[in-house]
């Protein structure tokens, strides 16, 4: 599964994208965030205020409870400021 990061989430993690090999017990967006946070300081900093981070699964908005089983691409980013 590919993970992509945008804006200051990308800057804090220090990567624009990466391939993830997830253990089977990681089933939801929320569990994926837990797993990422445990990987290192950059991730912990990126997700330090978890409610403010948005996720998308295969380029569609997702919630913390969304299942990631069949996802090809999961994205994490701050609240949007376009327009």
């Amino acid at each position, binding site marked *: 599964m590919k993970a992509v990061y945008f804006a200051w989430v990308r800057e804090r993690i220090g990567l624009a994208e990466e391939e993830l090999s997830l253990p089977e017990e990681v089933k939801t967006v929320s569990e994926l965030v837990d797993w990422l946070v445990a990987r290192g300081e950059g991730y912990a900093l990126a997700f330090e205020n978890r409610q403010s981070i948005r996720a998308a699964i295969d380029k*569609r908005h997702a919630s913390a409870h969304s299942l990631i089983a069949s996802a090809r691409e999961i994205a994490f980013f701050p609240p949007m400021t*376009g*327009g």
Partner: protein
Amino acid sequence: MVALKVSVQLEDFSAQEEEKCLLSDRRDIGALISFIGLCRDEEPPLSALELEHYPGMAEAEIAAVAKEASLRWPIFGATIIHRYGMIKPGAQIVLTLVAAAHREAAFASAQFIMDYLKTRAPFWKKRHFSDGTEGDWVAPKIEDDLALDRWLETKPPLP
């Protein structure tokens, strides 16, 4: 058939060209709204706003918002262009055009599109200052979330 056009692009756009395209030779359009969002200068002075986006999702989200607008109001067409990259103060960022028979539908759907686009389309703005320093990321405005509330009274929000 409602003509919906969405573009996410690096290049600048011409509202006039897009209007011509949307109007084509129709004689049933009574109202044409154009909204242009521009890069405002700030204090300390900006050299540019950098607009990052999520390719693919940006287009899809804007198209979904345009589609929803066309289901809520009787409009003939809409054109939405959103730029990314480095944008200098005074330059254009976003264009929303709506053509309809009557002004009410044109105004409401253009405003709806802008309100939803602000909070759903994956774009992020970063400030770059004139003194050469790279600034912070623009924070979302609370008013942008509040702006969505007005649309909830009539119909459910987008999924």
